[in-house]
């Protein structure tokens, strides 16, 4: 149905970010937590709108912005992700003297960009959304202005990100040239019916893969990831590791799953994505073995997870992909939340050596962190296991047995470095005192929510699966 309501989830977020910016100017206060609470409130409102519109199929702007169930589901997980990120950043910002009012505004702008991306099926609109997301992200990466690493992260992200955007626009132009369309369904239709110029279309799609490959950090477009993840403020790293990845895959899913329904023309691209998936899983996990900085370990781990998600695309398994992203959201933000929890004024404990004996000194933080790591490694009974189970079993169903074997062996490698953190936390004696700031209720709330999410998705995922099935069932393009 074409109705103005379709804009609500987006408008609420945009309104919130503008309001935050204005309020910040008029109420100069040291403690800006009121901005955070305000943002959280608006996020809840936006999420409520998403829930309300479930199964309604609203759209606006001639269908350029349409809230299908799948879009709504993606919106919801992005809103949840942002919600958790705000929870984990509230105290962090004051502790690390980066408490700028525009932080929340930028975060919400980024979210609005992501919402645009997941609720549109027109590549031009998606590109608009991507730019909104990217520009806010560059600023967020460099939030700690006095910190060299943070600046480096921002510049690196900006430079490589602009390249990726350029590739994407280029790809869109090629696709337009090939099919005279910018809407994804028409492009796919054009490519499939052969009414287009084949090579042009292929080059276009290839460039789109590069553009989004950068956003979701698959090898070989991952070079920026470790440095940016390490340099950016930790809550922002958590945000980067989940948000852009989720939207990137949401778009890739819209393009490639319908495209791969047709085997004839897509062999080349299928092969390309196959190779990308394989080397992402292998390289991401292998390089992570050598890291000693926890943020970098998690950065490479997020690269490896992009590889598993790519397998889901190849397996044409939307259910698995969406479930994986949902589980990944909780376990990854949870892991970063635990890293943030181990911090004090102007200092974060990020080296593996710092984690010696943490598990017994701070039993709750240690135990939850261990659960997130175990989930990332894919052990049952956590969400991470079930996610891998769905993706890999769908891939086997599509005959991708060798890719799945590469995947499971790569995840065997990953077990080693996830467990390595646990080894430091539980099996080595502490060498020095690690003081942390305990006065951080919002962070512990986030930790608890993530823990709940990981376990709920691992043990009783029934409700979420029902929702995802509804979302997948009503797909416009299948």
């Amino acid at each position, binding site marked *: 149905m074409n109705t103005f309501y379709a804009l609500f989830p987006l408008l609420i977020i945009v309104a919130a970010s503008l309001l935050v910016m204005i309020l910040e100017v008029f109420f100069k206060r040291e403690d800006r937590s009121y901005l955070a609470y305000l943002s959280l409130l608006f996020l809840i409102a936006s999420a409520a709108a998403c829930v309300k519109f479930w199964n309604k199929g609203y759209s606006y702007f001639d269908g350029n912005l349409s809230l299908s169930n799948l879009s709504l589901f993606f919106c919801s997980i992005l809103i949840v992700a942002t919600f958790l990120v705000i929870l984990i950043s509230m105290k962090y910002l004051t502790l690390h003297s980066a408490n700028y009012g525009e932080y929340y505004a930028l975060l919400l702008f980024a979210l609005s960009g992501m919402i645009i991306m997941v609720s549109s099926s027109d590549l031009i609109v998606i590109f608009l959304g991507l730019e909104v997301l990217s520009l806010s992200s560059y600023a967020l990466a460099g939030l700690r202005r006095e910190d060299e690493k943070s600046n480096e992260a921002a510049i690196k992200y900006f430079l490589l990100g602009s390249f990726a955007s350029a590739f994407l626009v280029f790809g869109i132009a090629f696709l337009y040239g090939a099919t005279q369309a910018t809407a994804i369904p028409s492009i796919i239709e054009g490519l499939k019916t052969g009414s287009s110029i084949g090579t042009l279309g292929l080059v276009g799609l290839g460039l789109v893969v590069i553009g989004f490959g950068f956003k979701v950090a698959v090898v070989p477009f991952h070079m920026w990831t470790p440095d940016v993840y390490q340099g950016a403020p930790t809550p922002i790293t958590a945000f980067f590791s989940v948000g852009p990845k989720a939207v990137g895959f949401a778009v890739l899913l819209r393009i490639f799953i319908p495209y791969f329904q047709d085997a004839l023309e897509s062999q080349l691209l299928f092969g390309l994505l196959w190779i990308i998936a394989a080397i992402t899983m292998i390289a991401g996990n292998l390089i992570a073995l050598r890291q000693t900085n926890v943020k970098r370990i998690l950065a490479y781990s997020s690269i490896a997870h992009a590889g598993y998600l790519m397998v889901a695309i190849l397996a044409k398994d939307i259910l698995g992909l969406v479930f994986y992203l949902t589980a990944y959201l909780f376990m990854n933000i949870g892991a970063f939340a635990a890293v943030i929890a181990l911090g004090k004024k102007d200092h974060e404990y990020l080296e593996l050596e710092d984690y010696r004996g943490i598990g017994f000194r701070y039993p709750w933080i240690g135990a939850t962190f261990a659960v997130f790591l175990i989930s990332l490694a894919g052990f*049952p009974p956590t969400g991470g296991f079930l996610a891998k*189970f769905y993706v890999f*079993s769908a891939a*086997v169903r599509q*005959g*991708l047995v060798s890719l799945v074997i590469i995947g499971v062996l790569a995840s065997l490698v990953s077990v080693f470095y996830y467990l390595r953190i646990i080894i430091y936390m539980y099996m080595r004696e502490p060498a020095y005192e690690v003081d942390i700031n305990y006065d951080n209720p919002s962070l512990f709330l986030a930790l608890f929510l993530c823990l709940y999410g990981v376990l709920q998705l691992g043990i009783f995922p029934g409700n979420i699966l029902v929702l995802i099935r509804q979302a997948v069932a009503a797909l416009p393009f299948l």
Partner: protein
Amino acid sequence: MEIPILSIVTFLPLAGALLFIFINRDKENLLRYLALFISIITFIVSLYLYFNFNAQTPDPQFVEKGPWIGYGINYHVGIDGISLYLVLLTTFLMPIVILSSWTYIQNRVKEYLIFMFLLQTGIIGVFVALNLFLFYVFWEAMLIPMYFLIGIWGGKRKIYATVKFVLFTMLGSLLMLVAIFYMYNLFYKATGTYSLNIFDYYRMILNPNVQVWLFLAFGLAFAIKVPMFPFHTWLPDAHVEAPTAGSVVLAAVLLKMGTYGFLRFAFPMFPDALQKFLPVLGVLCIIGIIYGGLMALIQKDVKSLVAYSSVSHMGLIMLAIFALNLEGIEGGIYQMLNHGLSTGALFLCVGILYERSHTRLIKDFGGVSKQMPIFSAFFLVCMLSSVGLPGLNGFVGEILCLFGVFKANKVLAILGVTTVILAAAYLLWMFQRVMQGPITNDKVRSFKDLNLREIAYLTPIVILMFWMGIYPQTFLRKMDVSVSNLVNQVNRKEAIFTEAKKENKPPVNMHVLTENEKDKDPIAKEDKESQ
């Protein structure tokens, strides 16, 4: 409504673990007593299974089935004559290991007991699960508590040992997971319904070429767990570094998960591939038996001696199971229980010595029996049970195993007997060096004999050793029907294949699968589908 007795047995320890989270860590004695209480309750509840077990039917009993995630993933548990004793063995040993670590574990008692309980739930879950997904969940989830038990309370090289243990096991089980996906998919293609129920899979008659790969994937997972030569290298490390209770659980129950896996999954599902691999497997078992025995002979450390003896003994158990006849498999299962008791008890004895001397090197001991006469008696019985002295449990099991093997293959049986000879050699020699002779180390003079607690946990084991050695009927009769059903199942499927080969036509399958070109090659199949 029926009482979900199996679920209670499985999840009672988990409930205990959750309860423990909320108890103050400083109340160590409360924690210990409570743990003992919970584990004894679990054991008593599990005895209900034994007394109400119907020995006349091969079907699983105490079945509970309920929807869980859907699409074939259901909660489905039950036990038959094969898994009954393994569950009982687990619940029986748990109070014993908790008692044995009463004073041994002084640090972080709370976490220790929590992990013990999680481990117990995982192990029982593996034995009762009748849904492949559920089985896999328990199979993997059980690794985590064991990882912590070795890694936190282990010896000097604990981290190396625990990582090696996890990675080895994971390697096998991940490939098994791929095989499970493959079968899940085959079943769906053939029938149009999703199922992970193992009884549905029993009905599947698979293409022999596919079977080979699936058998290799499942077999690797189980062979690593058993462990069969050459996948055994994690075992001595894990055993030596683990705390006493960890070693006991590892040897007594965890290794049985591998043999159980062969019996429950690999045999009935892939009988044809099994036949193909039998010669290789037989040889590997023999190598394991001899190699394990010889390695045990030269160990300087009592604990690693017992660990290598495990490799040797498990070799015989596997050999007996691969005989694929009633005597062999029954003997194998019986020997699994015996090995659980005797090796578990030997580890307990080593633990008792270690607690007094803080060393495990054979040369540091000598003449201990003079200082510890009661201990000496217990140790002697456990050692002889492991050697296989008539009148004790080991003898019954080994005789049955060797009968079975002899029926199947005489050469292998003759070579298999070496396990008994070698066991006598390394165990008696060890006993002589540790317990007898003059006291050479002054430290030994300060050893105190067993206290009441130690006697309390060794006594039930020794009683059971005599019982199982003198009157094995109590135990064997309840597994007869299940085992002969298993043997029939394997033979029946085997017959279908031989029939098909004789008539030179692909095996026809009425139940689930048909022999089909595209089943062989996943890539060709994918092309076909996507077109």
